[in-house]
């Protein structure tokens, strides 16, 4: 039991760190002169802060090093607690919002899903909107990574937490000798690219508030927007182009960005097998889908088709979830291909969700290995990705992950089917949730949102988002009897 208190001790500390995040909406509210909101956010900040401090003080006798298993517990606890605290301003400001919907909204924000249950986004106070987008942005690279970066995290096994929160199967390659330095460098790169994105969006014609909000949600690959019509509201090819560029930035491993920046060389990207495969697949798909839409006469000319296909495909494939047109109306092949990409193209160590490109590559190469093995039974052909050998235990871990991933999707889809939803809506809603993508098709398509769901259905999607963001193992491990056995 003492160990459990150690987890709460660390959780308290993390909540204190998290409370700092409320400063941004406070400042925004001050700028817009909305003093009621200033007060509300300050109050929420105080509550979160005090809850953290209280937790920390009560359990301070149990301060100590976290074991591997408690690292998982802490990460999951943090990822359920933070959205809960983040609901407070929403519940205070938006009338008739149930806790279920508010929790869905904040979970969707923190897991960078970008699905929303709110309508009338255009009329929300700026502070609330910036709060939603800030959740997107923080959740993107990982709040615990941030905590490890800014705090020496007194006595917490930083590396374990880092591994539990960062997506991808191979996390041993530290960029710098100290994990805190690694985390800090990743965040510096993240902040720098975000600033570039804000300026580019402003240049492309957005207002400051929209630019900041959309930069946050683009870099986090969240996909929240300040408008009900999402990016369709702007109807600007330039804005769409800027967002495409930055979404493609965000779908690449941030470690590669860091190495490229440190080495002042773009060759890093060519050596990153994941980045090459992801970007290559996305670009090829853009042209393919554009041709398809043109051929099916959805759009009269190829350039229009290319514009809409590119933006919506990049948005869905990178797990952002913006929409500029109602792609639910396209022939079913196009959106299904986009959702298929959403499952696979994000790189490990990026802000996207899904299986991750590295796992897809591992599976592809594994299949190739099996073929060679059938033809040459004596062959020794270790798996190699980007010239490096991938150990067999990682291949097995990936196979295990894929199984759990598909089982999660199947199970959650069945849960929605039980509740009476139609198949296309249920399946795409779960795909969008588990991949942290955003809109689905049908009831939850780009033209509508998740507000039509029943409470049960909303909770199923919420669970899907959490499971998807923490890459299944981290969450499900808590439900194995062995985890609780001494």
């Amino acid at each position, binding site marked *: 039991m003492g160990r459990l208190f150690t987890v709460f001790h660390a959780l308290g500390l993390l909540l204190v760190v998290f409370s700092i995040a409320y400063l941004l909406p406070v400042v925004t509210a001050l700028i817009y002169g909305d003093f009621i909101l200033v007060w509300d956010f300050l109050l929420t900040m105080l509550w979160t802060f005090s809850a953290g401090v209280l937790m920390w003080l009560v359990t301070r006798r149990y301060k100590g090093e976290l074991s591997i298993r408690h690292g998982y517990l802490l990460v999951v606890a943090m990822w359920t607690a933070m959205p809960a605290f983040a609901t407070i301003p929403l519940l205070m400001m938006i009338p008739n919002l149930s806790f279920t919907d508010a929790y869905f909204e904040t979970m969707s924000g923190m897991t960078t899903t970008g699905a929303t249950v709110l309508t009338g986004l255009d009329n929300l106070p700026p502070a609330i909107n910036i709060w939603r987008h800030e959740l997107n942005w923080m959740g993107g690279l990982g709040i615990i990574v941030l905590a490890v970066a800014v705090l020496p995290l007194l006595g917490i096994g930083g590396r374990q937490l880092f591994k539990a929160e960062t997506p991808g199967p191979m996390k041993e390659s530290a960029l710098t000798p100290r994990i805190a330095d690694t985390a800090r460098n990743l965040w510096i790169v993240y902040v720098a690219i975000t600033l570039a994105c804000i300026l580019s969006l402003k240049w492309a014609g957005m207002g400051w508030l929209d630019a900041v909000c959309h930069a946050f949600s683009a870099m986090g690959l969240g996909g929240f927007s300040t408008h009900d019509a999402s990016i369709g509201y702007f109807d600007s090819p330039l804005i769409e182009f800027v967002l495409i560029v930055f979404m493609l930035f965000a779908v690449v491993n941030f470690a590669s960005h860091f190495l490229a920046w440190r080495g002042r060389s773009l060759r890093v990207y060519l050596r990153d097998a994941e980045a090459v495969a992801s970007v290559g697949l996305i670009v090829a798909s853009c042209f393919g889908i554009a041709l398809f839409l043109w051929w099916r006469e959805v759009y009269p000319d190829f350039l229009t088709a290319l514009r809409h296909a590119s933006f919506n495909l990049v948005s869905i494939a990178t797990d952002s979830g913006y929409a500029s047109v109602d792609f639910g109306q396209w022939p079913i092949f196009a959106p299904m291909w986009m959702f298929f990409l959403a499952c696979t193209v994000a790189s490990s160590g990026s802000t996207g969700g899904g299986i991750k490109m590295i796992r897809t590559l591992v599976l592809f190469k594994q299949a190739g290995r099996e073929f*060679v093995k059938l033809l*040459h039974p*004596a062959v*020794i052909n270790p798996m*190699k990705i980007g*010239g490096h*050998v991938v150990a067999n235990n990682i291949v097995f871990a990936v196979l295990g992950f894929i199984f759990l991933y598909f089982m999660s999707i199947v199970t959650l889809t069945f849960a929605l089917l039980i509740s009476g939803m139609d198949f296309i809506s249920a399946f795409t809603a779960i795909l969008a949730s588990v991949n942290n993508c955003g809109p689905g098709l049908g009831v939850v398509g780009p033209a509508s949102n998740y507000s039509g769901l029943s409470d049960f259905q909303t909770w199923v999607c919420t669970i899907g988002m959490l499971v998807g963001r923490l890459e299944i193992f981290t969450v499900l491990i808590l439900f194995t009897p062995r985890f609780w056995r001494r």
Partner: protein
Amino acid sequence: MERRSVKILILGAGQVGSTVAESLVSEANDITVVDSDGEKLRQLQDRLDLRTLTGNAAHPTVLEQAGIVDTDMLLAVTQSDEVNLVACKLAASLYNTPTRIARIRALDYLNREAVFSAENFCVDFSICPEQILTDYITKLIEFPEALQVLEFAEGKVSLVAVRAFEGGPLVGKPLSFLRSHMPQVEARVAAIFRQDRAIIPEGATLVQDGDEIFFIAASDNIRRVLKEMRRLDKPTKRVMIVGGGNIGRRLAKALERDYQVKLIEFNKKTCQKLAGELTNTLVLNGDGTDEKLMQQENVNEIDVFCALTNDDENNIMSALLAKQAGAEKVLALINRSAYVDLVQGGKIDIALSPAHVTIGSLLSYVRQGDVAAVHSLRRGAAEALELVVHGDGHSSRVVGRRIDEIDLPKGATIGALVRGSEVIMGHHDTVIEAEDHVIVFVVDKKMVKKVEKLFQVSIGFF
């Protein structure tokens, strides 16, 4: 005038060390060999007239005991790159040894010139026997018809050994036919061996089926000359290597880009490592003498089969098996010279003796005078030398003379010379100038001393 005998210290009594010792002992040098394995040294001392010392070759006390203080030349050829480097450094810094040669395997060192510079490890020359052997085999695979391809003058000129076969335009004709048949291609036949006896080639000499012909040509012309001697085989596509040691690995790496390479290695751990390093090679775990595995991997479709393990018997056996199963051409690495003579020319197409292939480059550093390259031919019986000519008409017995005026011993021929970047074939009226690189072919190794002496500048020059 008797030359002072040269004091040579050899570190390491492995394959390289003992072969070097063997070939240097006969040339009247004082040789000391150091190794940590006393047993190896005892065996060496039983055979050869030299001094041995047991101990760590990188330790100063051991080096001092071995007499490094008045040593003229240090040959650090132990198994370990690091020991060799340290020994060279110590020899230079503490004992002022004039010449230091190290055997270096790791490409990491070889790729960085600075490692060997006077400020760092003070290595005058580095040699890598595995690399020399790999280059040698690579050439053979590139020219499957040749028995041996040796390069001189930084690759500008090649000496090629080939067995003449019925079907080549030159077979059955006199040598002078070569010139009239291909006036635009410069090539010169340096020697012909018929039933293991050397024939001095003259214009009227008839080429017969089965002759082993050595010719010299500019490297770009090799294939055209080969075509005169025999029908060309189809170009090599598939290569199978047995043994993933230092040589097998290097060879696979050198070939995998241009050929389909299969590599068989017995040790599973080594296989894993190899498969990690190589990109296009198919690494197979198994025994090179396992005929089932060979059949499974279609050995009958293989163009060149290379048995390169450490074990002579295994190499011979797997090469024989491969030939039996239908491999086009088989090659076996054989350390014991008795086996080489036994096997060569039988079912195994090429028996490679690593010592003879690699010793040349080492010897070229060790020999007196200006020897730029030495290659052993016919398993050490004959030799080809690249000599740099110095002096003028007074001090040298070579400079300013036509080739037919030079007093070469019988059995030695001047094949070609390289002047700057120009390759000149050696005709009887070619005049030799100072700083030419002259390629001399010597049918009997015993004449090498005489040839070297001929090319040395007389004392009056200084």
